[in-house]
């Protein structure tokens, strides 16, 4: 007897999305920056500033996990690069 015949409803259980080590580390970096962004601690502020000063290539893998405020800060700091990219596009 099939499930349909049996009138059984099968629940779809979403599988945990697999992540490789790089993905996890990038996610942790994003969580770290987001936490620093909300902190008043001077060392955390410095960590955030150092992150913002990294090249866009280094920042890119963490992008989707960053808070909007951090994303705005990145765009502000790297505005010239974005402008150049838009103009060349």
């Amino acid at each position, binding site marked *: 007897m099939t499930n349909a015949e049996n009138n059984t409803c099968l629940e779809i259980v979403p599988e945990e999305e697999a992540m490789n080590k790089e993905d996890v580390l990038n996610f942790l970096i994003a969580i770290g920056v987001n936490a620093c962004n909300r902190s008043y601690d001077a060392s955390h502020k410095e960590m955030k500033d150092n992150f913002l*000063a990294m090249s866009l290539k280094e920042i890119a893998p963490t992008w989707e996990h960053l808070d909007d405020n951090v994303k705005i800060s990145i765009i502000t700091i790297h505005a010239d690069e974005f402008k150049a990219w838009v103009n060349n596009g």
Partner: protein
Amino acid sequence: MIKNKTNVKETKDALISRGLERVFINRYTLDDVTKKMRKMVLFHPEILTGYFKAIDNHNALNEVFKSANEFEIDLSEIPFWKKKINSIADLATSTDGSVSELWYGNADYIISAANMVQDFDWKKLFDNMSILQDNNNYLRTSYKTVAKRYSETNPLLFKSHVENNIFFTKDRKPAYPVRGIMYSHYVGLGFLTKKTARKIRSDGSEDSSLSGLKTLTDNLDLYSNSDELLLQFTDSKYEGVVLHLVDTLPEYLLASIMGTPFYWAKRKLESRLEAIEKAREAAKNLLNESESEV
């Protein structure tokens, strides 16, 4: 802009550590992202290589073990964690202040780790915690757990501990909640004798005496001379003890507490005897009815 590769690496390492601290911070509720990251880190501890320091503190490790329990992950089966568990369990017998943190309830993960280590020396941990607990009238949960594990894993040593430090000592005895829990485990292990029952009955604290008696009434099957042991408590000077006896003594032993001087115990005993009488009459009537029907 940071051009130097070393600086980029340093920044990333610092942020990863900060991220780990954040993921394993103590919170009332965990969001899905935190749960996911905790699971990832626990299942793939190789991620922690070089960053373990970020979570090598009591609060974060408490969260690590709590999450492992929640996600049903057996850390002792993951080689990385197995090594850590052994070194964490060593903290239980160290003199670096970890035992004190454990006693305060800030490092419960040490107990979780100790539970995962085969042949862990619970006696040593118990002795270390007793120094902190014995004269304290507030019983810490961690001490209760350790005392329980000690009594389960080494009942004979535990028995001599209770006898030498509580029943038959002329030195100062531990505080009343400690005596209560010791009586409870001692009785629960089936070691109670007429003499030690008498000692529990004569304890200076009602709470301690009552917790010994409660364990006895819950574990009467362990004792072939349960009636004799129960009777040791009937002349207790504590109303709470007599009230408990009124509730739990078998009917044929109730006469032993009829002369109690306690008002509420007398009233309760009256009610129980009335209830027994009513039940007996109801049974008699039922029998008569069924006989007349036949």
